[in-house]
């Protein structure tokens, strides 16, 4: 028998080596005649394949290949022509056939008699439009403007055509908008102050990195396709360091894991910087040519930061800080990925500025394979034609009014002159996803009418007056890009919309038609139109040139996916920063303008109140993106309830055993859920993953206060939420 070692390296060579091993001849993953073989083999009917784009709020924003047999989707997988998606989907994407054909889909427009009563009745689209349009016109008449109408829409579907909802609201007059993002605001401001805007390197460049620090990022769960490139880099010898308060799935794969105390990452970065400056390991040429304020920053560091302080603050021993600092400073190029979770603290923006500074002083910014990578928007230059129509003559008001999406309930309740009386909710589930859901519910109680457009009967729909059933990505056209990778993906309509579902664009046209029937000229949004014409209008000459495509239809015919010109895939390669000085700004006057310290300094973390000493973090969960996916029965078959991760030491102190029900409580709320005893979390922290679990009437946000992050106004209009500065107590229930 042949003895042969399959090394890690051989293992991943893919189909070529596999073919040899198997003696399969032409084995490979390529589809025959462009169709996956199953589709070709198992039907006598018509088989078609379509390109789709996963539109969820996810780094990976995959290009999808959908097989349709006799008008029904039979398989959904990744598009092989996209070198980031690589023909494979994450676990969530693999559930898409069930997302479409789920028995839980909302099938028809419905009206609820008594908000939260569950007493729903089916109504026609015409009835739904009539109720809504009459209410809009009534409000306009009573208040002299449409400002009492509030839109809360965000990231459930990032198809560019879904901005039709914003466009529709703009087309009736000035309205109130939930502004900001719960995602990335503090970190985006930080990168804005330092470099002008957040701009990340192409994640496929992890392969070019000599050293990778994943700083509070868990791509194993939130960006599986990035994790592939990181694993490939590891196999080539790149060192993977993970810095995180939790032993995440990604930390479990690291060459080195460093457990930092939550919300002290900035202190760790500043400690590393102190060591790098003291040991002359910084890139003097880069700093002198490309930055301003290094002198001031350096003197701040020398005066205020010591390795001993950093070790004490972070819980990371001094020799480890020194070693990691040396390794990072001497690796070329070294790549840092800052996760969104890391900045969901009251000092999150300041911490991101400190990490940016670490990358800047070592000259890692503007380098292929390097960078301090957080988020980017370089490929989002569409026309946003759906938002271009504007307020009709005489609709009242002067401009839109904003409430912070991150403190939605309280700010809706506080709004007056005029008060908010009607809500339109799309691509969002605020009753599950917002902090202080009880306050959000109170805000709902103040409304004359709550309209929610959604796929499923989630918490927000359950507390609405009217629900409008929407399409999945497979039932409507569109186009998507990512805030992480550099691909543009076509979304074709693969099947007819199920039941009576409509896209947000169709809903916008339908409502406009009704409004204009009731009062001609009351809505400027077009009343009809072909979605394919709409989508073509999104592409301008710049974006066509950037992606090398002639049109949406041209891209549809040519693989459904295109990558942006290489020239933009290395962030800041030209070293022309978009700051006021055009340089990297260690010293930022813009930061001062927004009320912050000009330098990347350490600002204190939020301290646990005495009665609630345990930090409760709510990171993303592998089977969900916010409140999407986890509730599907395919995933409920694997894990059907949320749980609380507790360190054995803490569990022992509280006499909690694995599987015991635990009550988690603070001044904002409480809930009871089963314990999972695990060393993956530190003993001063518990973890409850984010998500909507079917049949579960609480969410991780029950104990989350609307505590602000330090930054967000500069880039996003509003500060974010310090989701991870949530302190609780726990007891055996």
């Amino acid at each position, binding site marked *: 028998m042949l003895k042969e070692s399959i090394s890690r390296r051989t293992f991943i060579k893919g189909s070529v080596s596999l073919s040899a091993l198997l003696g399969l001849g032409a084995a490979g993953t390529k589809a025959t005649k462009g169709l996956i073989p199953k589709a070709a083999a198992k039907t006598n009917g018509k088989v078609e394949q379509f390109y789709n784009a996963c539109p969820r709020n996810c780094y990976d924003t995959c290009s999808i290949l959908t097989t349709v047999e006799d008008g029904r989707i039979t398989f959904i*997988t*990744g598009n092989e022509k996209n070198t980031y998606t690589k023909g494979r989907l994450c676990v969530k994407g693999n559930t898409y056939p*069930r997302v479409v054909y789920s028995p839980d889909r909302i099938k028809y427009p419905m009206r609820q008699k008594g908000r939260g009563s569950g007493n729903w009745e089916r109504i026609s689209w015409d009835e739904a439009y009539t109720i809504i349009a009459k209410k809009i016109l009534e409000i306009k008449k009573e208040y002299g403007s449409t400002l009492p109408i509030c839109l809360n829409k965000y990231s459930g579907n990032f198809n560019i055509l879904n901005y039709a909802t914003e466009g529709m609201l703009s087309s009736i007059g000035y309205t109130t908008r939930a502004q900001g993002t719960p995602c990335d605001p503090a970190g985006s401001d930080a990168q804005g102050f330092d470099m002008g805007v957040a701009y990340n390197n192409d994640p496929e460049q992890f392969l070019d990195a000599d050293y990778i620090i994943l700083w509070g990022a868990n791509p194993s769960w939130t960006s599986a396709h990035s*994790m592939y490139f990181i694993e490939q880099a590891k196999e080539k010898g790149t060192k993977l360091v993970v810095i995180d308060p939790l032993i995440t799935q990604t930390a479990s794969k690291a060459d080195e894991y*460093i*457990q930092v105390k939550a919300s002290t990452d900035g202190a760790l970065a500043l400690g590393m910087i102190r060591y790098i400056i003291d040991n002359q390991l910084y890139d003097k040429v880069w700093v002198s040519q490309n930055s301003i304020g290094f002198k001031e920053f350096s003197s701040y560091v020398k005066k205020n930061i010591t390795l001993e302080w950093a070790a004490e603050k972070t819980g990371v021993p001094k020799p480890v800080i020194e070693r990691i600092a040396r390794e990072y400073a001497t690796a070329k190029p070294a790549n840092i990925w800052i996760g969104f979770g890391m900045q969901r603290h009251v000092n999150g923006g300041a911490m991101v500025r400190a990490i940016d500074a670490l990358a800047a002083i070592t000259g890692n910014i503007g380098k292929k394979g390097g960078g301090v990578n957080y988020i980017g928007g370089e490929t989002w230059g569409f026309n946003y034609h759906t938002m271009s129509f504007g307020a009709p003559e005489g609709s009242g008001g002067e401009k839109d009014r904003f409430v912070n999406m991150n403190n939605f309930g309280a700010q809706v309740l506080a709004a007056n002159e005029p008060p908010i009386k009607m809500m339109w909710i799309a691509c969002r589930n605020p009753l599950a996803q917002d902090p202080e859901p009880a306050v959000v519910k109170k805000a709902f109680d103040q409304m004359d009418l709550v309209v929610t457009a959604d796929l499923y009967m989630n918490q927000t729909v359950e507390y609405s007056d009217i629900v409008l059933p929407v399409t999945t990505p497979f039932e409507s056209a569109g186009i998507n890009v990512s805030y992480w990778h550099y691909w543009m993906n076509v979304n074709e309509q693969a099947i007819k919309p199920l039941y009576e579902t409509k896209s947000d664009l169709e809903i916008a046209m339908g409502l406009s038609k009704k409004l204009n029937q009731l009062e001609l000229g009351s809505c400027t949004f077009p009343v009809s139109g072909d979605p394919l014409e709409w989508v073509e209008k999104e592409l301008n000459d710049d974006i066509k040139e950037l992606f090398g495509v002639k049109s949406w239809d041209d891209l549809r015919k040519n693989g459904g996916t295109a990558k942006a010109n290489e020239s933009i895939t290395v962030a800041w390669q030209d070293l022309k920063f978009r700051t006021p000085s055009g340089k990297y700004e260690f010293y930022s006057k813009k930061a001062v303008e927004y009320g912050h310290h000009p330098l990347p300094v350490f600002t204190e973390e939020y301290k646990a109140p005495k009665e609630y000493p345990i930090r409760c973090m709510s990171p993303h969960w592998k*089977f969900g993106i916010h409140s999407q996916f986890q509730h599907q029965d395919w995933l409920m078959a694997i894990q059907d309830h949320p749980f609380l991760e507790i360190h054995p030491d803490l569990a022992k102190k509280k006499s909690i055993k694995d599987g015991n029900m635990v009550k988690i409580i603070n001044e904002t709320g409480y809930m009871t859920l089963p314990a999972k005893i695990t060393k993956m979390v530190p003993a001063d922290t518990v973890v409850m993953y984010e998500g909507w679990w079917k049949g579960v009437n609480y969410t991780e946000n029950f104990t989350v206060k609307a505590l602000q992050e330090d930054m967000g106004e500069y880039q996003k209009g509003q500060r974010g939420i310090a989701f991870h500065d949530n302190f609780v107590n726990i007891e055996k229930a």
Partner: protein
Amino acid sequence: MAKKLGFLVNIERCIGCHACEISCKSFYQLEPNMRRRRVTELPENLVGTPVRAFVSTACNHCDEPACKKACPVGAYTKREDGIVVHDQNMCIGCQMCGKACPYGVPQYNPVKKKMDKCSMCYDRLDEGQLPICVEKCPLEAIQIVDYNEVQPSNAVSVVPTFADPSITHPTTHFILPKPGKQTRRF
């Protein structure tokens, strides 16, 4: 020489995401609770330092398949290449195979009233394609190996949660993760 095809599961690479399991469920349009492949959490002290580790298993296409022995109607065959095939047309749904398999692989499909299990996608293999779970794993952590040709020296035949291989001689092998360095506060 006959082949001995089996899965080689790289736990070092596996991120426990279940994409293998769900892509299989999707491709074969299985009932929501049917799981031809399943991902199991391993003890967190598997490699010494605490980590999140998972193992993905399906049918182990055993050398001495207990399902085949237990089946009263001969619905199971073992192909020349080692793949254990269950013929659902012959199956009477008595569930004896499910009880006999130390890994609990054959599952009862209450809709079809038949047993169901992983076929290693033999029809795809016969056409030169890879099994769906192998092709769709985002981390390329599952491989098919002809164990008559290759004996990977870094592979093991058992991991915690996996039944004693001496009973049915499963062909599945595993590559264990290597522990990384950790600086922990607790």
